[in-house]
């Protein structure tokens, strides 16, 4: 419902941008999807930290699931960003924009998490190695996020939020906020479904071994 409302507001209620025209409305999905990816990676790092600090074994699966959802949202960020870039800049991708390259590095870093995870045997060692890796990735989060603010703007738009508040009209800001909440809710729902699925799978495996 939130997603439908958010997309409805973005497409029908928010005013059209004078410079970019209808393609600017990609902003209402591209930015929330990117922020959701950051949130997922941040959550994965927090769960990894809990595993290493408190030895909470459940946190391993939670961290893994958060990375899983984060990578999906990261891929969506890259795809929607490429579509927006093509219509705005005339290219699908440019290596001259630091923030794009940093986001790609972040995405590839977390994609490599799966290779690391599945190259070791299940158990406490794998859980700890994966947790250290997920936690290390958290260092890239502020770098990637702040790159948009610190980099010299060539093509990528300047951040729409600064010390003076949002640099957009009230209707645009409300539409953006609804889309962001919708995207975070969607990610939360997918995270819970995925986590439950993985836990059920683990229980089934145990049951199969008992009955074998």
């Amino acid at each position: 419902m939130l997603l439908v409302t958010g997309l409805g507001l973005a497409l029908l209620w928010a005013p059209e941008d004078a410079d970019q025209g209808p393609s600017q409305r990609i902003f209402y999905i591209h930015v929330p999807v990117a922020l959701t990816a950051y949130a997922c990676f941040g959550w994965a790092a927090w769960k990894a930290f809990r595993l290493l600090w408190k030895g909470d074994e459940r946190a391993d699966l939670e961290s893994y699931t958060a990375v899983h959802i984060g990578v999906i949202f990261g891929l969506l960020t890259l795809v929607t960003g490429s579509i927006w870039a093509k219509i705005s800049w005339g290219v699908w991708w440019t290596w001259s924009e630091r923030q794009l390259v940093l986001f790609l590095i972040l995405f590839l870093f977390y994609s490599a998490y799966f290779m690391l995870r599945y190259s070791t045997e299940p158990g406490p060692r794998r859980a700890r190695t994966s947790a250290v890796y997920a936690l290390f990735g958290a260092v890239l989060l502020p770098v990637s996020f702040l790159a948009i603010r610190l980099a010299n703007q060539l093509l990528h738009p300047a951040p729409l939020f600064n010390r003076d508040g949002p640099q957009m009209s009230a209707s645009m800001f409300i539409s953006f906020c609804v889309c962001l909440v919708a995207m975070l809710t969607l990610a939360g729902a997918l995270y819970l479904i995925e986590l439950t699925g993985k836990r059920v799978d683990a229980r089934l495996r145990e049951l199969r071994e008992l009955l074998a």
Partner: protein
Amino acid sequence: MSTGEKYLAAAYLVLFAAVLLYVVLIALKVTRIERELTELARLAKERTGG
């Protein structure tokens, strides 16, 4: 439909397709879990002689 509108539609369709694909994958997973549970229940019944 202008070029801008076509690209806008493409971006929204990507998101819609991703959500749809995820729902299909979850449905397949639930079906697999149900099948495995049925099989395990049958095995458990055989073990207990039920």
